[in-house]
Each structure stands twice: as structure tokens, then as C-alpha cells.
């Protein structure tokens, strides 16, 4: 079953290499089949699936389902907008794009289902390699620059992750020939060398944190997100970060089992607040709306790290936030893609008066703004609120104060830019209405985000609790 999830996108990637193949159909078909496989897993539950080098537990199932859902939405969006995106590009570009997109899905799946730390690393490095060509799709000089930065920074990050793996082995050395799967590591964790284990954790945090986009290793993020085609950015921000987050969670699992959870949590807390602060710094007066969304992703990765730093009761909220962020950020990036095609610019200054020119798009853009800022009735409000609640329960008042202050500043920054785009007076584009492009996939994501805000279904609640339990959540 899990092998099928891995093989399916790879087969798709091979298919699209054939010239003359209707690539958008293959992508959409693969996405739907993948989602169906995931649905089977959701219904069946994760108990009873043998866990060897690959396996699936509650956190993995959550991330897998989020990835599957987002991929279907993105594939549908691509299917509807294929001609506009590729009309001015060569067949080779289209082939590379399609192949890498499906390879991207396969490598993300590998990261999700890997239980062996070495395999996990291989998957993460593979995602970097599969996605670099995607950033380069537009073939502009800016795209080259973004791709190079991405390759260099993320490769260094993943290399540090490799060092973390080696140092982890050294830490476990005393136990002689310990297995390297999550389950074995967790079992052996208490009896390992503490200094080396902490060193390993730091390398993992810095290394994998680079890939997730935590400050101060986030420098590749705004460039890559803004130069890549919007659907790709949606996947980066809504799916890839979740997979890297899962990898970091595996490391945290081991640290927690070793009794060093507090050390790990304090580091997460610091990086989380730092990421939030960086996001604020660059979001105010941001001139490019895709970069704005990229910094928003930095903000939300900060929120996730902050939530882990709080630990305990906040953990299930963190997983809920993962789902919410995927839905809303996915929607916003797809909308950004529509805006780029409708207005031919990425500049937030040149786009004005969207509610007049492209009413549906403008309305959804505003909805997205409120959703991503954590306002009720959208789901993000609930996850952020629960994290704050847990932090208060632990008496971390000044951290919560900083957290809330930064969130407010983010809302000011984003709101300023996005409101002006939707409502402002237009100096450049007069008169006529423009085509919004396909809005249904974004709309569906938005509706789901709203639904989650109104009511979290029981099965999802159970899955969230389960996931938090795997990480030692619930214990305060």
C-alpha cells in the first residue's frame, strides 16, 4: 500500500517524459489516484500496518492527507490553466516541469513514510533536487538566481542534516549496532551519550530547519517562492514544509524519548519567535505579493516552531495548524497565480482595484487575507488560539506577549498590502473587467478552511490527538 503511494507518482513522471503525452491529464490523474489511495488509508486507520523501513503513523498520515489534498487542488488548477502557463514555453520545458512535479510528489511521499533516518535524509535531499528545475521554469535571469540560491542554501542545509545523522549514530554508539529507525531510536534514546545527542539535534535543527524555512536560514525562501510558478509555490508552502516539519518531528521524538525534550523545545521556541520577527521585518511595505506570501509562510513556520516549543497541550493545535496553513496558503498562492496572469505583474503596487476588475478574484483575495491572519471563523483562529491557551497554561506570559505582538504586526503588514490591492484606486488598469482564471480549486480550499473553523470533525480530532500523542503531547 505504501509502496503503491511511492511508485504511483514515479510511474506518472516516467509517463510524462514520452513526447506527445497529454501531460496535464497525467498529472491530474496521478493526483486523483494518489488521493484515493490516501483516502483508503484514512478510512482504514494506521493500526496494523507493518512498520519497517517505511511505515505510517498518525503524524505521517496527517501530513500525507494534507499533501494529497493540496496536490489534487494544484493539479486541478494546472489542468484548467495549462495553456496560459505553457503557451510561451518549449515542449522540453513542459516535459521537465511535469516530470519534476510528479517526482516532487514521489520524493515528498518518501519523506513522509520513511521510518529509517537514513532514508528520511535521502528523501529530503531528493526533494531539493526534484524541485530546483521547477523554480527555473520561467527561464528568466531572476529565476536562475533564485534557483542557484535555493540549490546552494538547501544543499548546505541538507548536508548539515547528514552530519546530524552521523553524529546521532555516534551518540548511540554505546549501544552497539542500534537500528536507525525511529522506533529503535526512541527505544534506545534514554541510554545514549547526551552531549553528542544534543550536538546531533542542533545539526538537525539548523539543517532541516533550512529546508523548512526557519530563520535565520530562510534566505532562499522569498526568492524561490516568488520566482517559481504560483502552483509550485503553493506546493512548496503547503506540502513540502509539512514534510520537512515531519522530519524535524521525528528528531524531536528521539530527543523527547531521551529525556532532553526541554532542551529541544527551548531551541524551537527561539527559532519560532525569530522567524516571526523576520517575517514582520520584511512584510511591511513589501512590493511583490508573491514575496509577501513567502514571508507569510516564514511567519507560519515560526508559529509551528513556537507551538512545538510550548509542547504538551499545544501539540495537537500545531498539527491542526499544519492542516489550516496548507489549505489557506495553498489557496492564496493559487490566487496569486491568477493575479499574475490577469494583471501581468507580480508587483503589489501596480495591482489595484481588484474587486472592480476581477470581482471574484478580489473577493477571494480578501477572504484569504482574513483567513491567513487568523481571524474567526476560519480554522487558523482555532489553532493559533489553542497554542496561546497552552502557553498561558504554562505561565509563559512574556513569550505569548511577544508572539501576539508579532502576529498583530504581521496582520498590519499583510493587510496593508493586500487591502490596497483589492480595494485601491487603480492608476494603471482602467475600465474593463479582466478574466479571473480558474477559481474553483482555490475556492474549494477556502471553503474547507472555513469548514474547519466552524467545526472540526471527530475523525480529524482523533487523528490530531493521536499525532500529538506520538510526540508526547497531552503531557504538560
Amino acid at each position: 500500500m505504501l509502496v503503491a503511494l511511492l511508485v504511483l507518482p514515479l510511474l506518472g513522471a516516467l509517463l510524462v517524459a514520452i513526447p506527445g503525452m497529454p501531460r496535464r491529464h497525467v498529472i491530474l490523474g496521478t493526483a486523483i489516484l494518489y488521493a484515493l489511495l490516501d483516502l483508503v488509508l484514512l478510512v482504514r486507520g494506521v493500526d496494523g500496518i507493518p512498520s519497517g523501513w517505511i511505515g505510517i503513523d498518525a503524524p505521517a498520515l496527517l501530513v500525507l492527507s494534507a499533501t494529497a489534498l493540496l496536490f489534487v487542488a494544484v493539479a486541478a488548477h494546472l489542468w484548467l490553466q495549462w495553456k496560459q502557463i505553457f503557451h510561451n514555453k518549449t515542449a522540453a520545458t513542459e516535459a521537465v516541469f511535469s516530470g519534476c512535479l510528479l517526482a516532487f510528489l514521489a520524493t515528498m511521499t518518501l519523506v513522509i513514510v520513511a521510518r529509517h533516518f537514513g532514508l528520511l535524509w535521502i528523501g529530503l535531499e531528493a526533494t531539493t533536487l526534484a524541485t530546483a528545475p521547477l523554480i527555473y521554469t520561467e527561464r528568466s535571469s531572476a529565476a536562475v538566481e533564485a534557483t542557484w540560491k535555493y540549490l546552494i542554501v538547501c544543499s548546505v542545509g541538507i548536508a548539515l542534516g547528514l552530519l546530524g545523522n552521523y553524529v546521532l549514530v555516534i551518540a548511540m554508539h554505546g549501544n552497539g549496532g542500534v537500528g536507525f529507525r525511529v522506533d529503535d531510536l526512541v527505544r534506545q534514546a534514554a541510554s545514549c551519550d547526551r552531549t553528542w545527542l544534543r550536538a546531533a539535534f542542533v545539526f538537525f535543527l539548523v539543517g532541516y530547519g533550512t529546508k523548512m524555512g526557519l530563520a535565520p536560514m530562510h534566505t532562499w525562501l522569498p526568492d524561490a517562492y516568488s520566482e517559481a510558478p504560483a502552483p509550485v509555490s503553493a506546493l512548496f508552502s503547503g506540502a513540502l514544509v509539512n514534510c520537512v516539519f515531519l522530519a524535524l518531528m521525528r528528531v524531536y521524538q528521539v530527543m523527547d524519548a531521551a529525556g532532553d525534550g526541554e532542551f529541544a523545545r527551548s531551541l524551537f521556541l527561539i527559532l519560532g519567535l525569530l522567524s516571526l520577527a523576520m517575517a514582520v521585518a520584511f512584510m511591511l511595505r513589501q512590493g511583490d505579493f508573491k514575496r509577501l506570501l513567502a514571508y507569510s509562510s516564514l511567519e507560519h513556520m515560526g508559529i509551528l516552531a513556537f507551538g512545538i516549543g510550548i509542547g504538551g497541550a499545544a501539540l495537537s493545535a500545531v498539527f491542526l495548524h499544519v492542516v489550516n496553513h496548507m489549505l489557506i496558503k495553498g489557496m492564496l498562492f493559487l490566487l496569486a497565480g491568477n493575479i499574475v496572469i490577469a494583471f501581468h505583474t507580480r508587483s503589489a503596487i501596480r495591482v489595484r482595484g481588484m474587486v472592480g476588475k476581477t470581482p471574484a478574484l478580489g473577493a477571494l483575495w480578501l477572504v484569504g487575507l482574513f483567513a491567513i491572519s487568523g481571524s474567526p471563523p476560519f480554522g487558523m483562529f482555532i489553532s493559533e488560539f489553542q497554542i496561546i491557551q497552552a502557553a498561558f497554561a504554562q505561565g509563559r506570559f512574556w513569550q505569548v506577549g511577544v508572539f501576539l505582538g508579532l502576529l498583530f504586526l504581521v496582520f498590519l503588514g499583510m493587510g496593508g498590502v493586500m487591502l490596497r490591492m483589492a480595494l485601491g484606486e487603480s492608476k494603471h488598469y482602467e475600465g474593463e473587467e479582466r478574466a479571473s482564471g480558474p477559481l474553483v480549486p482555490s475556492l474549494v480550499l477556502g471553503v474547507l478552511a472555513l469548514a474547519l473553523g466552524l467545526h472540526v470533525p471527530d475523525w480529524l480530532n482523533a487523528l490530531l490527538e493521536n499525532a500529538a500523542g506520538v510526540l508526547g503531547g497531552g503531557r504538560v
Partner: protein
Amino acid sequence: MGGNIVDALLVGLILCNVDLLRTNRIAALIRTAALQGVLIGMILFFSHTDGFSWHVGLFALTVVFLKGVVFPFLLARTRQGVNAQRENNPFVGFPMSVCFGIAAFALSLWIGARLPLPGVSALSVPVGLTTMLTGFFLMTSRRTAITQAIGYLVLENGITVFGALAAGQAPFVVELGILLDVFLGVFVMGIAIFNINREFHHIDADRLSSLKD
């Protein structure tokens, strides 16, 4: 006896690092990085004093082949393709770079004293750290994109020294997968460099700075 050989090889690594920081000819950089790779393969082979194992031997051989032959070949091809001869005007001058290397080694010795590891040469951790720092330094203080790629390889070399300490623990498949990933990484970087050159007609990474806030 194995310990003495490993020590000698580790010293060889340090000398390679100094050479990397000192030279400005890109072809020479590639050759030294290749030599470093071979030395690391040999360290891998000799650092297992508890009997020879096919697993470790095969891994060492693969490392020597990849780091000593394949990666340098890929980089040399890229270098010829973009016709890059010298590293001109680095951010940090070459004599200063060597000073940095010495300082990095001193720092690594200090850190190494705090991360004790019985049963292996006392030089292993410091040399590994120094090589990593050298790689980082090359990536950040040099202008051309191809030197950044070489710096990445040197960083990987440093990390592999730690791998030598951990070798034999993971099944060969995993180690093979790791090497394969690094190979693909270098390959993709080479392609990226070609494209940078084609787009900008230079490969000065510091001039890739139009994307900024």
C-alpha cells in the same frame, strides 16, 4: 598501526584544506578537492580496526571513486564549459583565507576537546570540523558559482569524516543512496552553472543580487 595511518591521512586533509584556501586557480581547486576525497576514502577504510568487512571496504571504494574521479570530472567539465580560469577578487584575500583556516583549526581543536570520542584518533573530530568550516568559507568568500559548488563538495568531505566514525552502522543501501544524492546534487549544480553563464555571461554569484528586499 591503523591509528597511525589514520592520523597521517587526517594531517593530509588539513594540508588539503590549506591548499584550498590558498589557491586561486579553479582547476587546482578541483584537483585538491579530488585528492581530499581519496584521502577520505582511505580514512574510511583504515579507521575500522576491528577487522576488515566487505561492507566498509565497498563503501570506501565507492567514496574514492565518486569523490576522487566522478565529482572532479563533473566539475572540470562545467569549468571548461563556462571557461572559468581563475577566482579573481574574492571577498576575502588568499593570505587572509589561510589565516582563517588556521583559526578554524584552532577552534575545531577546542570544540573537539569538548566532544570526546574514545577509540578513535583525537584528530578526527577537529579535522572533520575544519574541513567543514573550510567548505563553508569557500562558499561564502568566493565569487564564482563554481567555487561555491567546490565549497559544497569540501563541506561534504568534512561531513564524511564524521561518517567514517559512524560507518558500518547503516546498511550499504543507505550509504549508497546518500552518495547518489550528493552525486545528483553536484550534477544539478553543474547544470545550474551552465545556465547562469548562459543567462548572465558570467558566473559571479555575488552579482546575482537583483532579488533583494
